[in-house]
């Protein structure tokens, strides 16, 4: 039995809010709530460094006033006083609601939810976590003499609960457990610059985390970069690892976001559905229910059920991600990608990149056997700074290798630059094997003609 100190009681919350709303003369309201009970550990060369735990709760209340305008307020205070303050605050804020775009309840807020096979896992508690992480760090440090520290590391587990209620009877709630492990090592050899690399693992519970896999990957990613060289500035054939490609795609997700389209800040327009945006063998889905998605939720912030959605099929843009309001504006159903707000945000869940087996790329490239020359990009960084999502352009530092004549040399301090539209249309091959990463699912993706800047 897993319980948290501040767990939510959905029916009690609904009754309390309904009483308060009646008193304030509020007929329409909805509420999103979340609470969690987390703990995590960090270690430093065998010693516990920081041990953390938290019990968090928050609610967001949305109300419609007599003019039909919407106001919202959030609070961490679940007491009667806090709930009242939130409701009254939301009512006051509703005076500033946007009459041009009034959100409504999702028409799917009471529709059946998909089955999610995410059994709650028992939590181990902080001291066993500490033992596991300490052993993992020792193992990692012992594997290579150049690795002297693992400056970024952490092992965490959590139990969280979320719910959605509205005044028309919707009542959604879910509980989930989740655990995460990250190990980022730093290696340095005499007379050479330090290098770093790391790995992440997620699981439903801490006891099922692939600790050994995480250690091995962190070592491989760190040690493989010790022999580095500068790369000459120029145009290169590039192969993105699944993780790197998914992070690039995620940075440009406004292309698929109906909210961004309506706001005029997307590369797509209202009439872009049906247009060709990628090579014909490229498929992209958003699949929040994918078995590999540890954080999967059965409903979004508006109570809409989560579902698999085709975004790009055979290179053609098929759908946008929607909230209730954007779906209404486009004349379609909400897709289960909304937050909760006065102006509802929309976001992707879990990208799945694949290829159409009926349409060949005409290439048979394989990153593990190709002799080059090409640049294998393992990890992109500083996406918050180097991506211009509204313009399509990016210029990003990366970790990776220059592969030439079968030899792999780590690239020192370089950036890759381009335009996401050119990337999607310049894909020369998607390898056959897709990998499940903590960002989504993708194969290795080959793109021609990307600009690389190095120090050589």
């Amino acid at each position, binding site marked *: 039995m897993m319980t948290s*100190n*501040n767990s939510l009681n959905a029916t009690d919350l609904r009754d309390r809010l309904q009483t308060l709303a009646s008193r304030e003369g509020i007929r329409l309201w909805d509420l999103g709530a979340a609470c969690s009970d987390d703990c995590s550990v960090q270690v430093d060369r065998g010693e516990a460094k920081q041990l953390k735990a938290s019990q968090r709760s928050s609610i967001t209340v949305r109300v419609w006033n007599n003019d039909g305008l919407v106001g919202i307020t959030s609070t961490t205070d679940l007491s009667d006083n806090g709930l009242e303050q939130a409701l009254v605050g939301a009512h006051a804020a509703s005076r500033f609601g946007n009459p041009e775009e009034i959100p409504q309840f999702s028409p799917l807020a009471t529709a059946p939810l998909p089955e999610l096979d995410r059994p709650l896992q028992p939590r181990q508690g902080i001291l066993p976590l500490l033992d596991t992480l300490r052993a993992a760090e020792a193992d990692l440090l012992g594997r290579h003499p150049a690795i002297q*520290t693992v400056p970024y590391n952490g092992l965490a587990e959590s139990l969280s609960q979320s719910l959605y209620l509205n005044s028309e009877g919707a009542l959604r709630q879910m509980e989930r457990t989740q655990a995460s492990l990250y190990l980022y090592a*730093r290696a340095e050899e005499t007379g050479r610059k330090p290098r770093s690399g790391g790995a992440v693992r997620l699981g439903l519970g801490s006891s099922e985390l692939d600790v050994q896999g995480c250690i091995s990957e962190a070592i491989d990613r760190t040690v493989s970069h010790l022999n580095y060289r500068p790369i000459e500035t120029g145009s290169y054939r590039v192969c993105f690892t699944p993780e790197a490609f998914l992070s690039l795609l995620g940075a440009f997700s406004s292309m698929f976001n109906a909210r961004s389209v309506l706001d005029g800040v997307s590369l797509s327009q209202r009439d872009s559905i049906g247009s060709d945006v990628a090579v014909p063998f490229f498929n992209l889905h958003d699949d929040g229910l994918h078995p590999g998605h540890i954080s999967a939720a059965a409903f979004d912030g508006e109570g809409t059920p989560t579902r698999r959605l085709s975004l790009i099929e055979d290179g053609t843009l098929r759908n946008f991600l929607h909230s209730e309001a954007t779906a209404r504006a486009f004349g379609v159903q909400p897709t289960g990608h909304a937050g909760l707000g006065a102006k509802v945000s929309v976001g992707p869940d879990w990208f799945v990149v694949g290829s159409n087996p009926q349409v060949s790329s005409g290439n048979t490239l394989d990153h593990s056997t190709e002799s080059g020359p090409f640049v294998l990009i393992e990890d992109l960084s500083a996406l918050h700074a180097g991506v211009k999502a509204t313009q399509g*352009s990016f210029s*990003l530092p990366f970790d990776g290798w220059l592969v030439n004549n079968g030899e792999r040399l780590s690239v020192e301090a370089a950036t890759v*630059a381009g335009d996401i539209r050119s990337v999607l249309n310049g894909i020369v091959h998607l390898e056959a094997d897709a990998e499940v990463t903590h960002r989504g699912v993708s194969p290795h993706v080959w793109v021609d003609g990307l600009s690389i800047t190095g120090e050589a």
Partner: protein
Amino acid sequence: MTNAFSNQWRGLMESLLHRGSAAGADLVEVFLERTDHIGLLAEQDRITSVNPSFARGAGLRVFRDGRDGFVSTNDLSEVGLQRALDQALAMLGLEAQQLTSSATFEGLKQLTDHGLTKADWLERCPSLDQASECLLQGTTHLDRLGQHLQVRRGSYARDWQEVLVAASDGTFARDIRLHQSTGLSVLAADGDHRSSIGRRYGSSDRPDDLRDWDSEASAAEVCNSAGTMLRADYVDAGQMPAVLANRFGGVIFHEACGHLLETTQIERGTTPFADRVGELIAHPAVTAIDEGLSGGSFGSLSMDDEGMEPERTVLIKDGVLQRFISDRAGELRTGHKRTGSGRRQSHAFAAASRMRNTFIDAGSHTPEQLIESVDQGLYCKAMGGGSVGPTGQFNFSVEEGYLIENGKLTKPVKGATLIGDAKEVMPRISMCANDLDLAAGFCGSVSGSVFVTVGQPHIKVDSITVGGR
């Protein structure tokens, strides 16, 4: 217990601190917080989002033999706080009921109340009506001054925070903080040409700040930049000298060096400067300072999140490393004296050594002299964000750039990212101009996102890698 923090909380705080000390903790610290936040968004000529939020919570930290256990909770009841403390003690193998002979807690000192003169600040802030009007004035100015504008946005955030810090070394201090930030941004589009430009203006401790905001001047700055960059070519990549403008140009020092002078980085073994106090680590032209005192600046503090009044910390003097930025844990684990730099986003984070108002000090040259000294290079007028990795590799993006050819600014260029290594780039900052200015920003790191100021005069970097196409 009142919602507001005052001497009324002394008894409960002392009870918790005594409980933790008696269990054998070296130090116990309680951080209480209440916040009142408003966020406003104007798009085109309409307010499209108003987001009020309230929060309250506590962060309790226990130190024992150099380790610390930290627990955060939203439950400020006596039972809730006691439960959180017991959990923190248990993490370190301590039991609340067990009395040790080494308990040293002698009670809290007199309350140091930095919030006394700030009691009316929340009421003095602009109302929602006033804030909305200001933002809509801003987007109207954008409409009048800009061309090819597809999107016009104005945003305003007001963050009010009351904190109370009590620790078993007797620390008992309260403060009220007020931060306001206002931003304008546009997306200009003409055929295939696009530019997106944003500017943020921020202050601390100035309830009237939004009323004093010159929205027309801000709109003109954004529109000029967007117009210039709309048809700019992509920069040619390579190694070149660069002149970085003042104000937000200071992000280069923040990323390239400032983070590496936090004791957190010594603890992790991720700074190349750990044993180099007293040594030349930068060009002699560089003097760099981190302080919490600059009146009204975004990173200013009356006290840090550990109850200490902030110092003016000279980090680098004429190129020589002087000090590290340190917090309580940093002092304990590295021996560097605290500088009033223990900061956290909220009660949900343990404090860590973090920058406040960080800037390279003014030099003796004019900005024109710096530009004239470059034959072929890049002038970075406005910077975007940046980051630094565990090996000291930093990067940041250039939002508005120009080529320098034969000592003169020529055509605008876009798409540039500057990357480098802290140890290598600091000696290459060879000239500093006489026009020091500061800019507001946010810094995300181990203890969350905090308000900071970056700053510098115009500076010249002799050679840096410019990523582009």
